[in-house]
Protein backbone atom coordinates (compact mmCIF):
# COMPACT_ATOMS: atom_id res chain seq x y z
CA UNK A 1 0.00 0.00 0.00
CA UNK A 2 1.51 3.25 -1.07
CA UNK A 3 1.47 6.53 0.82
CA UNK A 4 -1.09 7.95 -1.60
CA UNK A 5 -3.47 5.10 -0.90
CA UNK A 6 -3.15 5.56 2.87
CA UNK A 7 -3.81 9.29 2.50
CA UNK A 8 -6.82 8.54 0.32
CA UNK A 9 -8.28 6.08 2.83
CA UNK A 10 -7.83 8.41 5.80
CA UNK A 11 -9.25 11.39 3.91
CA UNK A 12 -12.21 9.49 2.55
CA UNK A 13 -13.13 8.11 5.99
CA UNK A 14 -12.97 11.62 7.43
CA UNK A 15 -15.03 12.94 4.50
CA UNK A 16 -17.74 10.31 4.76
CA UNK A 17 -17.84 10.55 8.55
CA UNK A 18 -18.29 14.29 8.52
CA UNK A 19 -20.87 13.96 5.73
CA UNK A 20 -22.82 11.64 8.03
CA UNK A 21 -22.54 14.23 10.79
CA UNK A 22 -23.87 16.88 8.37
CA UNK A 23 -27.08 14.96 7.80
CA UNK A 24 -27.59 13.76 11.36
CA UNK A 25 -26.43 16.43 13.82
CA UNK A 26 -29.13 18.29 15.72
CA UNK A 27 -27.56 21.69 15.83
CA UNK A 28 -27.50 23.20 12.36
CA UNK A 29 -24.45 25.33 13.09
CA UNK A 30 -22.60 22.10 13.85
CA UNK A 31 -23.96 20.61 10.62
CA UNK A 32 -22.60 23.58 8.66
CA UNK A 33 -19.20 23.23 10.35
CA UNK A 34 -19.15 19.51 9.54
CA UNK A 35 -19.91 20.51 5.96
CA UNK A 36 -16.73 22.61 6.01
CA UNK A 37 -14.79 19.52 7.06
CA UNK A 38 -16.39 17.46 4.29
CA UNK A 39 -15.59 20.10 1.68
CA UNK A 40 -12.01 20.23 2.86
CA UNK A 41 -11.77 16.46 2.48
CA UNK A 42 -13.08 16.74 -1.07
CA UNK A 43 -10.44 19.41 -1.76
CA UNK A 44 -7.75 16.95 -0.67
CA UNK A 45 -9.30 14.34 -2.99
CA UNK A 46 -8.95 16.84 -5.86
CA UNK A 47 -5.30 17.26 -4.96
CA UNK A 48 -4.83 13.50 -5.07
CA UNK A 49 -6.37 13.60 -8.55
CA UNK A 50 -3.79 16.21 -9.69
CA UNK A 51 -6.48 18.88 -10.06
CA UNK A 52 -4.76 21.59 -8.03
CA UNK A 53 -6.77 24.47 -9.43
CA UNK A 54 -10.06 22.81 -8.51
CA UNK A 55 -8.77 22.13 -4.99
CA UNK A 56 -8.01 25.83 -4.52
CA UNK A 57 -11.37 26.84 -6.00
CA UNK A 58 -13.06 24.34 -3.68
CA UNK A 59 -11.46 25.97 -0.65
CA UNK A 60 -12.11 29.52 -1.82
CA UNK A 61 -15.62 29.18 -3.25
CA UNK A 62 -17.14 26.32 -1.29
CA UNK A 63 -15.60 26.82 2.14
CA UNK A 64 -14.99 30.54 1.89
CA UNK A 65 -18.31 31.55 0.38
CA UNK A 66 -20.95 28.82 0.39
CA UNK A 67 -20.32 27.34 3.85
CA UNK A 68 -20.14 30.82 5.40
CA UNK A 69 -23.38 31.73 3.63
CA UNK A 70 -24.95 28.63 5.18
CA UNK A 71 -23.78 29.65 8.64
CA UNK A 72 -25.29 33.11 8.16
CA UNK A 73 -28.57 31.61 6.96
CA UNK A 74 -28.72 29.30 9.97
CA UNK A 75 -28.13 32.23 12.28
CA UNK A 76 -30.83 34.29 10.58
CA UNK A 77 -33.46 31.56 10.69
CA UNK A 78 -32.97 29.78 13.98
CA UNK A 79 -35.87 29.86 16.31
CA UNK A 80 -37.47 26.53 16.84
CA UNK A 81 -35.23 23.84 15.49
CA UNK A 82 -32.69 23.13 18.17
CA UNK A 83 -34.95 22.34 21.09
CA UNK A 84 -37.61 19.67 21.32
CA UNK A 85 -38.85 19.04 17.79
CA UNK A 86 -37.28 16.14 15.89
CA UNK A 87 -34.75 16.90 13.16
CA UNK A 88 -35.84 14.10 10.84
CA UNK A 89 -39.28 13.75 9.34
CA UNK A 90 -41.60 10.81 9.90
CA UNK A 91 -40.47 8.93 6.80
CA UNK A 92 -36.77 9.18 7.51
CA UNK A 93 -36.38 5.40 7.36
CA UNK A 94 -37.65 5.47 3.80
CA UNK A 95 -35.01 8.05 2.97
CA UNK A 96 -32.35 5.87 4.59
CA UNK A 97 -33.59 2.83 2.69
CA UNK A 98 -33.56 4.73 -0.59
CA UNK A 99 -30.03 6.01 0.08
CA UNK A 100 -28.76 2.51 0.83
CA UNK A 101 -30.49 1.14 -2.28
CA UNK A 102 -28.97 3.95 -4.37
CA UNK A 103 -25.51 3.19 -3.05
CA UNK A 104 -25.91 -0.53 -3.64
CA UNK A 105 -27.29 0.02 -7.12
CA UNK A 106 -24.51 2.41 -8.11
CA UNK A 107 -21.87 0.09 -6.68
CA UNK A 108 -23.13 -3.02 -8.44
CA UNK A 109 -23.62 -1.09 -11.68
CA UNK A 110 -20.04 0.17 -11.52
CA UNK A 111 -18.67 -3.23 -10.63
CA UNK A 112 -20.13 -4.70 -13.78
CA UNK A 113 -18.28 -2.04 -15.82
CA UNK A 114 -14.99 -3.20 -17.27
CA UNK A 115 -13.05 -0.02 -16.56
CA UNK A 116 -13.91 0.01 -12.88
CA UNK A 117 -10.48 -0.81 -11.46
CA UNK A 118 -8.53 1.12 -14.05
CA UNK A 119 -5.35 2.84 -12.87
CA UNK A 120 -4.35 6.31 -13.98
CA UNK A 121 -1.91 6.99 -16.76
CA UNK A 122 1.16 8.99 -15.78
CA UNK A 123 1.28 12.63 -16.73
CA UNK A 124 3.19 13.21 -19.97
CA UNK A 125 6.30 15.26 -19.27
CA UNK A 126 5.69 18.98 -19.56
CA UNK A 127 1.90 18.56 -19.37
CA UNK A 128 0.43 21.83 -18.07
CA UNK A 129 -3.01 20.94 -16.77
CA UNK A 130 -3.90 24.39 -15.43
CA UNK A 131 -2.80 26.13 -18.62
CA UNK A 132 -4.83 23.72 -20.71
CA UNK A 133 -7.83 24.26 -18.46
CA UNK A 134 -7.57 28.01 -18.90
CA UNK A 135 -7.26 27.68 -22.65
CA UNK A 136 -10.23 25.32 -22.80
CA UNK A 137 -12.36 27.76 -20.84
CA UNK A 138 -11.84 30.67 -23.22
CA UNK A 139 -11.12 29.06 -26.56
CA UNK A 140 -13.94 29.40 -29.09
CA UNK A 141 -13.71 25.78 -30.25
CA UNK A 142 -13.91 24.52 -26.68
CA UNK A 143 -15.99 25.82 -23.81
CA UNK A 144 -16.27 29.58 -24.12
CA UNK A 145 -20.04 29.50 -24.52
CA UNK A 146 -20.79 27.47 -21.35
CA UNK A 147 -18.32 29.71 -19.53
CA UNK A 148 -20.20 32.86 -20.55
CA UNK A 149 -23.56 31.25 -19.79
CA UNK A 150 -22.27 30.46 -16.30
CA UNK A 151 -21.40 34.12 -15.77
CA UNK A 152 -24.89 35.18 -16.88
CA UNK A 153 -26.34 32.57 -14.50
CA UNK A 154 -24.30 33.99 -11.62
CA UNK A 155 -25.50 37.51 -12.43
CA UNK A 156 -29.11 36.34 -12.52
CA UNK A 157 -28.65 34.52 -9.21
CA UNK A 158 -27.13 37.64 -7.68
CA UNK A 159 -30.03 39.82 -8.77
CA UNK A 160 -32.56 37.20 -7.71
CA UNK A 161 -31.02 36.72 -4.28
CA UNK A 162 -30.94 40.45 -3.59
CA UNK A 163 -34.53 40.84 -4.78
CA UNK A 164 -35.81 37.93 -2.69
CA UNK A 165 -34.02 38.73 0.54
CA UNK A 166 -34.60 42.48 0.32
CA UNK A 167 -36.67 43.72 3.24
CA UNK A 168 -39.45 45.95 1.88
CA UNK A 169 -40.57 47.58 5.12
Amino acid at each position, binding site marked *: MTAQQIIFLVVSFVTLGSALM*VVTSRNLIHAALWLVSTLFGVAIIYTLLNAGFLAVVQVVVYIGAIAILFIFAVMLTRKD*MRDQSPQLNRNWWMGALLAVVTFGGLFSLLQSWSGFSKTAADFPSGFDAIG*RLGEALVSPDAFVLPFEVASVLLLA*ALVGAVYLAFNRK
Partner: protein
Amino acid sequence: MIPLSWFLTLSAGLFSIGLFGVLSRRNAVAILLGVELMLNAVNVNLVAFWRYGDLAQMAGQVFAIIVFAVAAAEVAVGLALIISVYRRRNTVIANDLDLLKW
Protein backbone atom coordinates in the same frame (compact mmCIF):
# COMPACT_ATOMS: atom_id res chain seq x y z
CA MET B 1 -1.52 4.37 -7.64
CA ILE B 2 -5.10 4.55 -6.48
CA PRO B 3 -7.53 2.60 -8.68
CA LEU B 4 -10.48 4.48 -10.14
CA SER B 5 -12.90 2.29 -8.19
CA TRP B 6 -11.94 3.92 -4.89
CA PHE B 7 -12.88 7.38 -6.10
CA LEU B 8 -16.14 6.14 -7.61
CA THR B 9 -17.08 4.32 -4.41
CA LEU B 10 -16.30 7.38 -2.30
CA SER B 11 -18.43 9.53 -4.54
CA ALA B 12 -21.31 7.04 -4.54
CA GLY B 13 -21.20 7.02 -0.73
CA LEU B 14 -21.13 10.81 -0.52
CA PHE B 15 -24.05 11.03 -2.97
CA SER B 16 -26.11 8.54 -0.96
CA ILE B 17 -25.47 10.39 2.30
CA GLY B 18 -26.53 13.62 0.64
CA LEU B 19 -29.64 11.93 -0.74
CA PHE B 20 -30.54 10.73 2.76
CA GLY B 21 -30.12 14.27 4.05
CA VAL B 22 -32.33 15.73 1.33
CA LEU B 23 -35.07 13.16 1.84
CA SER B 24 -35.25 13.05 5.60
CA ARG B 25 -34.33 16.40 7.15
CA ARG B 26 -37.15 18.71 8.15
CA ASN B 27 -35.24 21.98 8.12
CA ALA B 28 -35.01 23.60 4.69
CA VAL B 29 -31.44 24.81 5.29
CA ALA B 30 -30.42 21.25 6.15
CA ILE B 31 -31.99 20.04 2.90
CA LEU B 32 -29.76 22.49 1.02
CA LEU B 33 -26.77 21.12 2.94
CA GLY B 34 -27.65 17.68 1.57
CA VAL B 35 -27.85 19.08 -1.95
CA GLU B 36 -24.34 20.48 -1.52
CA LEU B 37 -23.06 17.04 -0.55
CA MET B 38 -24.60 15.53 -3.68
CA LEU B 39 -23.06 18.20 -5.93
CA ASN B 40 -19.65 17.53 -4.39
CA ALA B 41 -20.01 13.82 -5.04
CA VAL B 42 -20.75 14.54 -8.70
CA ASN B 43 -17.70 16.79 -8.90
CA VAL B 44 -15.43 14.09 -7.50
CA ASN B 45 -16.72 11.78 -10.20
CA LEU B 46 -16.13 14.31 -12.98
CA VAL B 47 -12.57 15.05 -11.92
CA ALA B 48 -11.79 11.34 -11.43
CA PHE B 49 -12.98 10.57 -14.96
CA TRP B 50 -10.83 13.40 -16.30
CA ARG B 51 -7.77 12.01 -14.51
CA TYR B 52 -8.35 8.41 -15.51
CA GLY B 53 -9.55 9.10 -19.03
CA ASP B 54 -7.95 11.15 -21.76
CA LEU B 55 -5.83 13.80 -20.03
CA ALA B 56 -5.85 16.11 -23.02
CA GLN B 57 -9.62 16.47 -22.89
CA MET B 58 -10.36 19.07 -20.24
CA ALA B 59 -14.14 18.55 -20.33
CA GLY B 60 -14.25 16.94 -16.88
CA GLN B 61 -12.57 19.83 -15.13
CA VAL B 62 -14.53 22.43 -17.10
CA PHE B 63 -17.78 20.73 -16.17
CA ALA B 64 -16.68 20.68 -12.52
CA ILE B 65 -16.12 24.45 -12.68
CA ILE B 66 -19.59 24.94 -14.18
CA VAL B 67 -20.98 22.85 -11.31
CA PHE B 68 -19.20 25.18 -8.87
CA ALA B 69 -20.91 28.17 -10.46
CA VAL B 70 -24.31 26.47 -10.45
CA ALA B 71 -23.87 25.46 -6.81
CA ALA B 72 -23.03 29.03 -5.84
CA ALA B 73 -26.09 30.34 -7.68
CA GLU B 74 -28.33 27.67 -6.19
CA VAL B 75 -27.20 28.38 -2.65
CA ALA B 76 -27.57 32.13 -3.04
CA VAL B 77 -31.11 31.94 -4.39
CA GLY B 78 -32.13 29.05 -2.13
CA LEU B 79 -30.99 30.70 1.07
CA ALA B 80 -32.57 33.99 0.00
CA LEU B 81 -35.85 32.14 -0.52
CA ILE B 82 -35.57 30.49 2.88
CA ILE B 83 -34.81 33.78 4.63
CA SER B 84 -37.69 35.48 2.84
CA VAL B 85 -40.08 32.68 3.81
CA TYR B 86 -38.83 32.81 7.38
CA ARG B 87 -39.67 36.51 7.55
CA ARG B 88 -43.25 35.94 6.44
CA ARG B 89 -44.15 32.57 7.96
CA ASN B 90 -41.67 32.42 10.84
CA THR B 91 -40.70 28.85 10.07
CA VAL B 92 -38.11 27.00 8.02
CA ILE B 93 -39.60 23.52 8.43
CA ALA B 94 -40.29 22.18 4.96
CA ASN B 95 -43.52 20.44 6.04
CA ASP B 96 -45.09 23.70 7.19
CA LEU B 97 -44.44 25.51 3.91
CA ASP B 98 -47.64 24.39 2.21
CA LEU B 99 -48.88 27.65 0.67
CA LEU B 100 -49.01 26.09 -2.77
CA LYS B 101 -50.81 22.95 -1.61
CA TRP B 102 -54.45 22.75 -2.61
